[in-house]
């Protein structure tokens, strides 16, 4: 007896528990197996690039908060770095240190969120997610001390940061730095050795370095495949060239390696923050930049290493008060390039895990 089966098309998203926002995949299933898929973007398109042309340079900072809302600090950083390059502004050193502290804390927070949701997609009933959010909450409290907001920070300004950290920030930060490695150990003992997790993640969506580089994928996905490429090392911005840190790399480029790379990057980020705290000089935090900032005519692109990959703003100035053009290189969007290669032939359950390991953020994908 032979059984014939017809492929079934299923719309995964735009409202689905684990597409991390309003991402839609039209997937053709044969039973549980994925035959074909077509991603549909744009449900969260807010026209950030166009809006930036309508606003003056300082106002655009608030727009960048809302790109990747799990990592506002790094978005701010990428934008103000580009503006500073346009206007050739020298930032006071204390401002640079504060920026790096904020950005690295943000990297820890974003990776905690990515790891928590990866495990949530794997069906771990929210326990790792709650643990990750417990620590993320503390980082957000630190951000609230720095700049009065937890998610949409708008902390950085062209020429530095908006204001110096309050006195109570430093003891809280030191306490956090002392306690956080223990919590990372806890995640490791909860998850890393778990046989179910290993079975679910190992060998799933392995990609070769060639494929990844050809698709211009960056961030933890690239490093998981084994290429040690980090903008903080290859093209240092702010004060990264004077700081000492390692770039963890994986071997296979599968989901497990991405998860592992993120955990290790959290440790490296904590050590970076520690170095900054011990070295931070006194002084002003913000260069004298007028509120209505008019850079000379020209263009600039500065890439930074955001938690999700290489984030860059390409800004063209016509000498006016607002950008003539503001192009955003969003890592989440470009990291989705190899979706078909990763997903076709896999199971339904792998789909959500792979999406979780890419760590997309629809605010950034659709912009």
């Amino acid at each position: 007896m032979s059984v014939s089966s017809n492929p079934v098309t299923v719309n995964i998203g735009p409202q689905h528990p684990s597409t991390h926002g309003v991402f839609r995949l039209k997937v053709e299933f044969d039973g549980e197996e994925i035959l074909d898929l077509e991603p549909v973007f744009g449900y969260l398109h807010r026209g950030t690039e166009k809006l930036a042309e309508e606003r003056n340079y300082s106002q655009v900072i608030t727009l960048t908060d809302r790109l990747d809302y799990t990592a506002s600090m790094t978005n701010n950083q990428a934008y103000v770095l580009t503006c500073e390059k346009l206007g050739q502004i020298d930032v006071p050193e204390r401002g640079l240190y504060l920026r790096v502290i904020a950005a690295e804390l943000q990297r820890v927070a974003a990776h905690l969120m990515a790891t928590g949701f990866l495990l949530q997609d794997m069906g771990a009933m929210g326990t790792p997610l709650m643990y990750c959010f417990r620590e993320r909450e503390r980082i957000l409290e630190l951000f609230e001390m720095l700049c009065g907001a937890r998610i949409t920070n708008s902390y950085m300004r062209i020429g530095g940061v908006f204001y110096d950290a309050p006195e109570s920030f430093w003891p809280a930060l030191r306490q956090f730095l002392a306690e956080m490695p223990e919590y990372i150990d806890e995640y490791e003992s909860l998850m890393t050795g778990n046989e179910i997790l290993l079975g679910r993640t190992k060998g799933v969506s392995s990609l070769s370095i060639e494929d990844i580089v050809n698709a211009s994928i960056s961030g933890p996905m690239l490093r998981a495949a084994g290429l040690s490429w980090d903008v903080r090392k290859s093209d240092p911005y702010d004060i990264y060239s004077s700081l000492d840190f390692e770039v963890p790399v994986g071997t296979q480029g599968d989901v497990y390696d991405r998860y592992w790379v993120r955990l290790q990057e959290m440790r490296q980020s904590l050590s970076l923050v520690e170095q900054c705290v011990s070295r931070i000089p006194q002084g002003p935090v913000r260069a004298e930049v007028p509120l209505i900032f008019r850079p000379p005519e020209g263009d600039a692109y500065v890439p930074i290493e955001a938690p999700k990959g290489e984030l860059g703003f390409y800004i063209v100035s016509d000498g006016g008060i607002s950008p003539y053009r503001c192009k955003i290189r969003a890592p989440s969007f470009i990291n989705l390039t190899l979706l078909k290669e990763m997903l076709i032939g896999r199971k339904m359950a792998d789909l959500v895990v792979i999406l979780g390991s890419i760590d997309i953020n629809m605010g950034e994908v659709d912009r």
Partner: protein
Amino acid sequence: MSPSVLENNALYQSIYSAINWVMPDFLDSIVGYAAAFAMVMLVANLVLVITPLFIWFERRILGRFQQRLGPNRWGPFGLLQPIADAIKLIIKEDIVPRGADRLVFNAAPVILFMPVMLMVAVIPFGTQFYLVDLNVAVLYIIAVGTLETIGIFMAGWASGNRYALMGAVRSVAMLVSYEVPLVMSLAAVLLWAGSMSLVEIVDKQPVPLILLQPLGFFVFIAATIAEMNRAPFDLIEAESEIVAGYHTEYSGMKFGVFQLAEFASVVVGAGFITAIFLKGAAGWSFLPSPAWFSLKWLAVIFCIIWIRATLPRVRVDQVMAFAWKFLLPLSAINLILVAVEMVIWPSPNGAQLWMIGLINFAVAAVAIAVLATALGHRNFAPRSPQIPTSTVVGEKVV
């Protein structure tokens, strides 16, 4: 006049005498049936009361596992939360999707709930506290328990939703796979007890059977968790994959009935584990026997919640592999082992019990380790990539 199957039932006798004392003489002919009905009502409602309590307990404990508090607003310690949930579900709009098969769609919750309630009949809650001592109780459980899948499949099929259909298909696949190791591990218990009656199985255990058949217990609890659709085998309603599985389209109290049936099946399943492997209601005499049953039952429930709080879900092919490649050989080993031991020591005394226990624990450890190594060699070996000391840096950008 009494139903004959209840004649030796102590619970029935006490209810009968109470009703007989109250009832006027001319109604003597129906006292037996009134007593039987009262007994059924009592036990059925007991389960219906325990299930919301279990939902509350699970949510509180799960909350504490996750460093939160869980529901604590309604009533003392949030005990009235399930009632609040039920009221909310009842007053919600009942939506039947356009593409649904209305009759099947509406019938599915009832059909899912019925077998759970039927299974309650044979659980011995206390030494003298059970509805009926069926002589084919184990067979009855397996037969009736299988019906649940029909309800799930009806719900998934009738919804006209592809997520629901996927959940239903997964449900049937899992039932077919996990029924086999479940029954084989029960066969070893039946060999030991020489009876299918749950009351007799409890009586025939010199020590809790978990100490004598650890392998059987492992297989049974794993298969039961899979049959109950609990994490880590909750593929049927894997909310991160197929939204809510078979009850995606259900709303209002129909959804509530699904939830109730699901949690009631955990209550009942934990009751069977308690009766079969933990010596049921037996215990020292300073507590009444239902209290012992409840304590053991709570311990089983706690372990199930604990597992749910910790483990990620397994993939669908891994679920099948776990049943066929891992649990089935283990249950076969267990069955053969128990059979051989029953031949060597037909009626074991104290020292021989020790011997049996030790041998079985050793075999269980060796069998699990060997099988897991053979199967997990490819997938489960931990790998920790190293942080390179010398960093390779890509080409400079800009």
